[in-house]
């Protein structure tokens, strides 16, 4: 490589370790964004395994028609807890945690603007998770009303158990945590950038965290108020969502999806950010059309606020409303398409190194486009009337959440692991993980598109032996088992690499953003000296003093 990065003095006291320093206490009491970030990541991996085991239980029950593995109540609890866990305790805190770890490093700051608020956010997530899972210990078990808890099913007298109460309380706690992290990120990004780091030079990951943070700050209160109302209904017998007493069942849906739809972009925008960092580095080219990739994020964020009722086409809101929401939803394809095509164009003409992060990023593009295309299909009202609440939708959102968010998360883990730990992850195990994931994932979920259009409703603990249903479900279940294998390989890779991984240099991928300037792992104070930022790729500029990055007008 022609690029040589000036050495930062050897890091004397890297990340505090459990055994050295003050032990556990240095973590529990930490307000350091890197430690908090890592705690986020570790806890979400634990939640991922829990949520994944719940998914396995679901898939085993569905392996055969009329199978008797678990009771209907347990099945309903499983998919409720699976969906809730994966969304609120895996993908969301993972991406927030990654942001907490990386944003200060990427903008050349010492820490977040409000380190203690940051710690509070993290512990609130844990508190929320404990509240949610505590419901397993109550007499009648956890909530069994699905992750969107439609009223009046989630209300008395239809759910007399305590599950939904714990569910709402747990999510309220994480909601407050998300607003706090959103606020913290916004202030950090707007006020703490290093000298020279203008908004137009902000790394794309930071851009997407910024937009996500705005979404958090403005849409979490929607669901927080809905949770408050639901709790009042359940605890004080208020009548918001109980039609029998004058309330409205549809109001809950408006409130839930008013939050719920922007939420899915909260789950995917930072993932887009990861992809926008990984693809250029491994293609050895700058991102194609920086302003369009950043600007389309803002467009997606704004559009996402006005499409919620595409989850409610079957509610009977009337044709005018349905058509409006249909068109608005389809429009999101445009800024999203801009992103996808810019990623492809970034790879075009590059010199691509398919290390594990890049493998996941490449696969991400394909899987996410499939998700997006089925998304646009269901945004068409008549198609939605065919497939809503069927396995087609289950396939759509797993392609988006797993093929999208989770693939990007894997790419991000492989990419930043050396920075966070000072060790490289094993490439061999990484490739095993990648291929098992791709095979298992597509096997599990592609077939569900067909099950859906053939008439299999979602959230059913059993099904009749209709032609091919049994074998199609079995294929899906086998896919899930392959996925479980892939998760085991992944967990093993992390464990092994932490102990025996090759020592990571400061900048193993020859990347260009500021986090790679400091040591691996970064010193407690992040940087001894933040290099001058004169373009979007500060480390490129350092290595090519004569070929600066921003050739003025040509920059898009």
């Amino acid at each position, binding site marked *: 490589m*022609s690029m040589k990065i000036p050495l930062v003095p050897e890091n004397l006291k890297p990340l505090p370790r459990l055994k050295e320093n003050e032990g556990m206490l240095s973590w529990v009491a930490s307000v350091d964004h890197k430690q908090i970030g890592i705690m986020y990541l570790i806890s979400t991996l634990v939640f991922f395994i829990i949520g994944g085991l719940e998914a396995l239980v679901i898939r085993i029950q569905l392996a055969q028609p009329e199978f008797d593995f678990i009771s*209907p*109540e347990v099945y309903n609890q499983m998919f409720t807890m699976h969906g809730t866990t994966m969304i609120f305790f895996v993908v969301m805190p993972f991406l927030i945690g990654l942001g907490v770890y990386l944003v200060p490093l990427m903008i050349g700051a010492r820490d977040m603007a409000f380190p203690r608020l940051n710690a509070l956010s993290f512990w609130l997530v844990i508190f929320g998770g404990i509240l949610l899972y505590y419901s397993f210990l109550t007499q009648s078990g956890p909530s*069994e009303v699905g992750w969107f808890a439609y009223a*009046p*099913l989630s209300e008395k007298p*239809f759910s007399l158990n305590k599950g939904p109460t714990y569910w709402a309380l747990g999510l309220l706690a994480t909601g407050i945590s998300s607003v706090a992290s959103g606020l913290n990120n916004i202030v950090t990004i707007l006020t703490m950038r290093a000298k020279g780091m203008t908004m137009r030079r902000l790394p794309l990951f930071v851009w997407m965290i910024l937009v996500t943070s705005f979404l958090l700050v403005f849409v979490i209160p929607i669901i927080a108020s809905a949770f408050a109302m639901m709790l009042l209904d359940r605890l004080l017998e208020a009548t918001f969502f109980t*039609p029998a007493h004058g309330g409205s*069942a*549809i109001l809950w849906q408006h409130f839930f999806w008013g939050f719920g739809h922007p939420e899915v972009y909260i789950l995917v925008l930072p993932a887009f950010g990861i992809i926008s960092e990984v693809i250029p580095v491994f293609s050895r*080219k700058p991102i*194609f*059309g920086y*302003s*369009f990739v950043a600007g389309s994020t803002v467009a997606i964020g704004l559009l996402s606020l006005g499409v919620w009722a595409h989850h409610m086409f*079957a*509610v*009977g809101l009337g*044709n005018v409303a349905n058509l409006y929401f249909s*068109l608005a939803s*389809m429009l999101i*394809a*445009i800024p999203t*398409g801009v992103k996808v*095509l*810019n990623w*492809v*164009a970034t790879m075009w*003409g590059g*010199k*691509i*190194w*398919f290390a594990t992060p890049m493998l996941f990023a490449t696969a991400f593009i*394909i899987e996410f*486009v*499939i998700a997006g*295309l*089925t998304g*646009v*299909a269901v945004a*068409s*009202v*008549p*198609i939605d*009337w*065919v497939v809503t*609440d069927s396995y087609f939708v289950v396939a759509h959102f797993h392609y988006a959440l797993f093929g999208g968010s989770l693939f990007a998360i894997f790419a991000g883990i492989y990419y930043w692991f050396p920075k966070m730990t000072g060790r490289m992850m094993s490439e061999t195990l990484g490739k095993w993980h990648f291929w098992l994931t791709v095979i298992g994932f597509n096997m599990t979920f592609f077939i569900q598109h067909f099950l859906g*259009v*053939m*008439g299999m*409703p*979602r*959230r*059913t603990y059993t099904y*009749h032996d*209709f*032609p091919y249903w049994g074998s199609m479900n079995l294929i899906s279940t086998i896919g899930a088992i392959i996925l479980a294998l892939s998760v085991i390989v992944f967990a093993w890779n992390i464990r092994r690499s932490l102990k025996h991984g090759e020592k990571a240099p400061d900048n193993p991928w020859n990347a260009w953003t500021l986090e790679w300037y400091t040591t691996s792992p970064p010193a407690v104070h992040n940087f001894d000296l933040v290099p001058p930022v004169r373009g979007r790729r500060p480390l490129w500029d350092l290595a090519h003093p004569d070929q600066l990055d921003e050739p003025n007008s*040509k*920059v*898009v």
Partner: protein
Amino acid sequence: MEKLGGIFNPSSPEMEAMADLTYYVIAISIGILAIIVVAVAYIIIRYRKGSKDSSEPYQNFGDLRLEIVWTLIPVAIIAVLFQLTCSTMKTIDPPIGNEEPDIVVIGHQWWWEFYYPKSGVLTANEMHIPVGKKLLLRIESIDVIHDFWVPELGPKIDAIPGHTNHLWMGASEPGVYLGACAEFCGTQHANMRIRVIAETEEEFNEWQKQELVVPRTPRSGIAGKGAELFQTKACMNCHTIKGTPAAARIGPDLTHLNKRQTIGAGVLTNSPENLTKWLYNPQKYKQGSLMPNMKLSDSEVEAIVAYLEGLK
């Protein structure tokens, strides 16, 4: 090869329109996906390098014209999709005037009630319709949200307490069409199934006539004992049997139980043996169902079965 259901077997004009739209959109999607896949495949083959090669490729920062092109093409595709959406909706969802519905569908946890306001027929879980006619359904719920879905016959629509919905439905061919509740509604959501029995006009009228007959209540023999037990064993608190004091609507109307093909919204086929099993313990076959285990003795079950079997 066995016949595939759902969208692969559209059996009403509405469903045909929707299936066509779906195929069309899927074709467009496959086209778009193919472009991306081919581009990525080409990139993988053409632009991959070993980790040895350390020269930098040409640093291309973007191209405004390309950005415009790939914004406008999706705009055009969306315009087409939206136009197709609108025109399909027109064919499947004509406005409802002040027409009286042909059938009122009422969702219950976890069974369906069908009421024919024009004739007064009340039945459960199995909906008879005359073939080739476009019927207006009014969809309601008395407890939580359900969703009426017969995949081969048309769109699904929610049954929401405190909010009525309408749906146009018909079948082009005679036959039995299976459907199910599609909105999660609690423990036995999976077993809240629907049977639509599409028959010729004559058969349908005959069925309606049959349904309106009030059966004679047996006074003697084992069936007579069953009829008596039905009134004394609290069955009447939940069920209706016309011509008897039993007139509650918590559970399905049993006036013509024998005419139905299944029991428990599709969990068991309707036969004397299965009815016996059901009455011993409905919770065994439909765990969580709102019909409790009535703890009947052998002879009581036998008597009630004999009585119910006589309700033709």
